[in-house]
């Protein structure tokens, strides 16, 4: 077997020349959201997408997840061409609370498995396991409205884990949470994910979160977005809180900041129709 073949086996998600725009070209509302993007994401890898708002990182995530048909190009997940949601390969954690408010936490988890088509006999075991993994066992019978924002996102993660997919997509999973909660959840996530060996792609606004969690960080340019550079973090999981104060962490975070700064400046100036001072 050649080296080439082995690498292909290792690829979990393959993005081929994906580009997207909203509205028809020539239309006043036409927005070029994402420029042609090609990238391979490896099995068990944790890839962070980071960039200024409106750069198309969520668009790319939705294309990978089959929630959005790209105007151009295509994505392969686990060797299959993406053409709509792939519940057996891909699970999602959304930024907003996407739990069904009328179901308890455990009912939410069971419902996900029902949608995906898991045999009823497995529901209870898998629900309990995933609740245990996120430390929410005592809250199984609570309604989402009775939990804090951080606990709700844990519950959403438990639901995604119970689906037992090789790929997990997370769209700013901690975006709506306060700094302290995201830090703790980030640590837990690192421990959890090093055990599950899932392929994870997550969108974030936080430089620290990207460096702390990801194996690679893809930095996007301002709209119309494209991947400007990919940074390797190269640090074993699970990562300890001490990593956050390490020299390497600071160096990578600064590197990201330098890459992003100009792009964010472009977006902000464009937004205010002015130029600097």
């Amino acid at each position, binding site marked *: 077997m050649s080296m080439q073949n082995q690498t292909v086996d290792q690829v979990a998600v393959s993005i081929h020349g994906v580009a997207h725009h909203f509205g028809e070209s020539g239309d006043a509302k036409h927005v070029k959201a994402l420029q042609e993007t090609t990238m391979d994401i490896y099995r068990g890898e944790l890839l962070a997408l980071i960039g200024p708002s409106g750069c198309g990182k969520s668009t790319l995530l939705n294309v990978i*997840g*089959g*929630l959005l048909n790209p105007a151009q190009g295509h994505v392969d997940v686990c060797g299959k061409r993406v053409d709509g*949601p792939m*519940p*057996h390969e*891909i*699970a*999602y954690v*959304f930024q*907003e*609370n*996407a739990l*069904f*408010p*009328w*179901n*308890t936490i455990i009912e939410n988890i069971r*419902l*996900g498995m*029902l*949608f*995906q*088509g898991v045999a009823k006999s497995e529901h209870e075991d898998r629900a309990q396991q995933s609740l245990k993994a996120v430390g929410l066992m005592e809250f199984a019978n609570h*309604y989402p*409205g009775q939990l804090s924002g951080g606990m709700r996102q844990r519950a959403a993660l438990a639901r995604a884990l119970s*689906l037992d997919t090789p790929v997990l997509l997370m769209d700013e999973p901690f975006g709506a949470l306060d700094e302290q909660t995201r830090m703790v959840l980030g640590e837990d996530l690192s421990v959890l994910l090093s055990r599950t060996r899932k392929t994870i792609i997550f969108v974030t606004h936080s430089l620290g979160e990207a460096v702390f969690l990801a194996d690679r960080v893809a930095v996007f340019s301002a709209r119309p977005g494209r991947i400007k550079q990919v940074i390797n973090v190269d640090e074993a999981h699970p990562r300890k809180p001490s990593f956050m104060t390490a020299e390497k962490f600071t160096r990578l975070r600064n590197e990201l900041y330098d890459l992003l700064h100009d792009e964010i400046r472009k977006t902000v100036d464009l937004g205010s129709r002015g130029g600097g001072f």
Partner: protein
Amino acid sequence: MAMTGPRPILSFMQKHPRWSQLLTLGLFFLAWEIAARFFVDKMFLSPPSRVYGEIGRVFGTKGVPDALWLTLFELSIAFAISVVIGLVIGLSVGLGTFARRSFMPIILLLYGIPQITILPLFILYFGIGAPSKIAFGVTHGMFPIILTIVAGVQNLKPVLMTSARSMGASRWHILRYVIFPHMIPSFFAGLRLGMTGVLLGVLLAELYVSTAGIGHFTSMFTQSFDPTRLLGLISVLAVMAIALNEMVRRAETHFSRWKS
């Protein structure tokens, strides 16, 4: 001290709203009793004590028990039809952008027409028996149900649909596990409004044309200047309406537990 005036009573009532409700009700009946006994012509108003005391006479009137059953029957049929029509139209209009844009203005327009003006048409089409009263009840009951269901379906958070879809939910799954539970609270609100509408429609039709039903007897008692029996009959009707409403409200609380 001057402080020991109405203050303690006020604060007591603020703490116990049940008691202030009862007190208000008591005052209302007292005022009615006094007005009927001393100020108003006996041909127009009876005191509540007499109405209550002679309620047996209402049931003793030939035809009234049958009329009660008939009206209850018409109400149930009209209500059932209103719910089915309301659900089907409400869901199809609420869930489809195209259907909403095409039909919503028409529905609002129809709802705006004072239907009493076309009551003669109903009688022409359905005769003077139960069918015309049921039909008139339906047209009064279905609109509030349609409108509350449309509104209820609309404010569903899109991320819930997206997340269900991403987990592989079929159309039926989405309807059964996402849309239905989401619209339960507004559905019940619609049921209560629909119930009031059906009651109004059926009784209006009975008042105008029929020779049976509660509406027929209310107009008969009024014309024979018998306020005691008239008010007795209305009380029976009120008890019926409150009981039906309470049933729906109980069901509503049961299905909306997650909201608390």
